[in-house]
């Protein structure tokens, strides 16, 4: 630390008690219905994201179960083609846009400030706006589904099938507008995460001391910012073709359906990695904690994350090998697709080395992390297979790919996620989750998963295409589909046992201490659950694993006001204190803006004029939202030089 202490003062127990009281008061959560709608506490917003996303995960799971029932026997009459096509579209759309991306965003909004030692998130009202848009989009999709205007052209909505000629009615418009909702929410979340990581890190937390999960979320957020505009372009052009008669994708008027595929997959492949990368951060977190040693190869792991992010943008064409593109081009994408296995491999080797040289505790989160290895490695191997053009042309759009993508996404992202939810449950709730129920959940999910998806490799090789609502007997597909249905039942039981665990532990779980797993990251340095202001007193960070390696007499940060929501803004690279900033107070305008934006977006499905007239109300609410506060303008303590925080080198109570 190059920062010199400004004032030497003794931090007494009394001082800490009075400051804590003042902080709890100024950061108190607002009450009542208006309070609920005005919430800007990152922990509340994060939890709302996580819980809402898990509800959508459950809905997506129910849809998956319906599909497995329909396909359990040949020529089943359970769902007709119309309903089945909607169900598989809703399943994919839900899992990708309403579960996988938002749940990690919720984890980031909840834990990034805690992990970097900040009192709150940057731009909290923007985060609140993001949540309301995400909720509105999800509710809109499911209401549409029940009103029979749910999308039915797959989560990718290829043209011309989803275009004006072959998809009359509103179903494709629903899909395209859902994309807009979730895009807004994702972009907002990405910006909030990046600013928090860059500007809100506690002094001492230089970039190379950041926790792996923060690195993973940082890289992911940049990927979101570069990937999402492509799909917005695709879905907006689609809706323009449908509603105002443009011809972006109409080959009869000089448009091109292949253009749509390029735009969609330029987003669609990075999408996979922006689900996968946060989970890699979770893996590093879990493996470090339950191997009781610092992660091996920190720099290698960060490099692997960044390398994956860059390469992730160079593989999209491997979704289009069957579209008859020039061969020299496809071979480039084969090479890139195989190359991305290298950083994944390095990560796995680092984790194995960490386990090998650590003291392993087989708690439930660690089991989920070990489950990742088995499932994800298999998914990675089939990934290498589908990277090869000739082989992909055989298995593309078959159940082999269904197996591959579920091995990668459930193994690579959902297993670490469930491990992390178990791991962080005491931090969310203050109570420990049940170990026994956790074991039951793990084994049900692990066995159920493999029983469901392993046979699908063989199904694909036996020639079963994806997205078929039924199949004829006698093609050698019956037994394997029946096994998949049985596995799905086990997975449903596993998911149910997680819900039971959460409910039972919330009521009767053992009370959790600050750091029940003996982890090294900062979220465990505060009470479980954390107070509204997250931390007090705040100590300067001295190492990569502060709870393990920092001496107890690290300087305490003083000089941040406790009578209002004030935060310390630090510099990007070295986290040196820069200035104090009055973080926004609770405010209902983000909610109202989200309501009017929702009305505009849904209205635009029916008339293009909704874009014109509908943008006026959000514009007005945005003015209200950004109206400056008198107190900030006149605040004399605001100039940076006066706002220098003081560091106290005296030893406060540890």
């Amino acid at each position: 630390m190059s920062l010199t202490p400004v004032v030497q003062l003794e931090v007494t127990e009394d001082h800490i008690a009075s400051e804590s009281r003042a902080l709890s008061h100024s950061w108190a959560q607002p009450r009542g219905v208006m309070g609920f709608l005005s919430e800007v506490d990152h922990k509340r917003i994060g939890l709302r994201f996580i819980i809402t996303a898990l509800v959508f995960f459950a809905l997506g799971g129910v849809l998956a179960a319906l599909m497995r029932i329909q396909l359990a026997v040949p020529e089943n009459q359970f769902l007709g083609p119309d309903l089945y096509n909607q169900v598989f579209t809703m399943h994919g759309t839900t899992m990708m846009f309403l579960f996988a991306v938002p749940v990690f965003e919720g984890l980031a909004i909840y834990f990034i400030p805690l992990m970097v030692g900040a009192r709150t998130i940057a731009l909290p009202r923007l985060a609140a706006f993001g949540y309301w848009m995400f909720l509105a989009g999800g509710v809109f999709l499911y209401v549409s589904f029940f009103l029979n205007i749910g999308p039915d052209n797959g989560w990718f909505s290829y043209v011309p099938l989803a275009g004006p000629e072959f998809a009359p009615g509103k179903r494709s418009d629903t899909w395209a507008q859902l994309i807009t909702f979730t895009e807004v929410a994702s972009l907002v979340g990405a910006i909030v995460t990046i600013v928090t990581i860059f500007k809100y890190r506690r002094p001492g937390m230089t970039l190379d001391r950041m926790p792996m999960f923060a690195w993973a979320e940082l890289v992911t957020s940049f990927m979101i910012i570069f990937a999402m505009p492509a799909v917005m372009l695709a879905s907006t052009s689609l809706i323009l073709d449908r509603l105002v008669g443009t011809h972006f994708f109409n080959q009869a008027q000089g448009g091109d359906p292949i253009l749509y595929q390029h735009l969609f997959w330029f987003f669609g492949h990075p999408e996979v990695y922006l689900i996968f990368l946060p989970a890699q951060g979770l893996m590093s977190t879990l493996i470090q904690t339950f191997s009781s040693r610092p992660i091996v190869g920190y720099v290698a792991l960060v490099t692997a994350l960044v390398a994956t992010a860059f390469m992730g943008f160079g593989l999209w064409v491997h979704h289009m090998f069957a579209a008859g593109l020039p061969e020299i081009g496809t071979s480039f994408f084969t090479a890139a697709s195989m190359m991305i296995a290298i950083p994944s491999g390095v990560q796995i080797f680092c984790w194995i080395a960490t386990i090998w040289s650590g003291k392993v505790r087989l708690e439930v989160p660690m089991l989920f992390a070990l489950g990742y290895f088995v499932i994800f490695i298999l998914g990675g191997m089939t990934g290498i297979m589908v990277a090869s053009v000739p082989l992909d042309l055989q298995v593309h759009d078959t159940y082999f790919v269904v197996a591959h993508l579920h091995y990668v996404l459930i193994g690579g992202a959902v297993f670490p996620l469930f491990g992390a939810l178990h791991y962080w449950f005491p931090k969310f709730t203050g109570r420990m989750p049940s170990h026994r129920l956790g074991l039951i959940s793990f084994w049900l999910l692990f066995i159920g998963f493999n029983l469901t998806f392993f046979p699908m490799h063989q199904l694909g090789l036996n020639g079963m295409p994806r997205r078929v609502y039924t199949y004829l007997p006698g093609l050698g597909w019956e037994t394997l589909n029946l096994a998949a249905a049985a596995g799905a039942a086990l997975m449903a039981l596993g998911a149910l046992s997680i819900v039971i665990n959460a409910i039972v532990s919330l009521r009767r779980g053992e009370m959790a201490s600050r750091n029940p797993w003996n982890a090294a990251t900062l979220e465990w340095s505060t009470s479980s659950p954390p107070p509204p202001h997250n931390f007090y007193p705040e100590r300067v960070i001295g190492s990569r694993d502060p709870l393990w390696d920092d001496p107890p007499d690290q300087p305490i940060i003083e000089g941040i006001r406790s009578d209002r929501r004030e935060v310390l803004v630090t510099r990007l690279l070295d986290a040196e204190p820069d200035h104090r900033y009055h973080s926004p107070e609770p405010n209902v305008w983000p909610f109202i803006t989200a309501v009017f934006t929702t009305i505009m977006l849904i209205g635009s499905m029916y008339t293009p004029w909704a874009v014109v007239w509908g943008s006026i109300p959000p514009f007005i609410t945005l003015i209200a939202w950004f109206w400056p506060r008198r107190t900030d303008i006149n605040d004399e303590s605001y100039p940076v030089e006066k706002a220098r925080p003081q560091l106290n080198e005296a030893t406060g109570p540890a």
Partner: protein
Amino acid sequence: MLQSVLESAGIQAARVESEWWFIFRVTTVVTVIVLAGLAVAVRRGLRGRDTGASEQRMLRYIGIAGAITVVILFAILVRSIFTSRALASERVSDVMQIEVMAYQWWWSVEYQHPEPEQRVRTANELHIPVGKTVAIKLLASDVIHSFWVPSLAGKLDAIPGHEAVLWLRADRAGVYRGQCAEYCGFQHAHMAFVVIAEPPDDFERWIQAQRKTANQPQSPIEQRGLQLVQQRACVMCHTIRGTAAGGRIAPDLTHFATRSTIAAGTLPRTPEHVNAWISDPQAIKPGNRMPTIALAPEDRAAIVAYLEQLR
């Protein structure tokens, strides 16, 4: 009937099958080694004794493992590129051209010939001579479809406004099932076809027979059937060469009774199925483009009798 990647019957599928076994073996070995390494690590970690290994040393091993990964991936890449090149070398010009036009949800097949009257149109069934490469020109009439016969070759998309060519060579006689592999809407599940590979002589006989116009109905009931076909809506969509039926948007029925299935591989072609299909196509394949035409049962029986003699 075969529809499997791992039971190849032609050169293209065989090359991919051999590539599959190569990558499968390599990746299986890698998986076993990595998981065994993990098991050793967990056992050691559970005992929790200090290994005394410095991070430096572990990073060296990680680097070595990473380098091995690169070598293995490179080997797979090279193998894959060689397979691609071998497949490309099978693309010969100057072979029989078959144009396949994909519709929601069936396949129209046309054997090209310089003289228009020598062209043959059929549906949902391709006959090819064993041991001879054929070029299949793929077109789409409405949305994107994908032509896929797993036992013969990888798939290729038929995209509106684009033209794609797939080369096939069957090396074993047999009947190979294929299916649309790109989601194309309501009845994507029922968009199958068969490829019948037969000795060149048989193929020649078949195509000569297909070039003829439709059989003239003999018995009174068959004649009544033809009369009904020409009077009712059938002619709006279907072609039966040699009769007044000249519609082009539905399968050509000139030699209907030589085909093994109806409704794009949905049902075997038996008189009972044909009858059921005509009486209510929407019950068998909901959403398909064929309307229900009100017919008295005896009229329907006459049409079935007529269709069944279209050899």
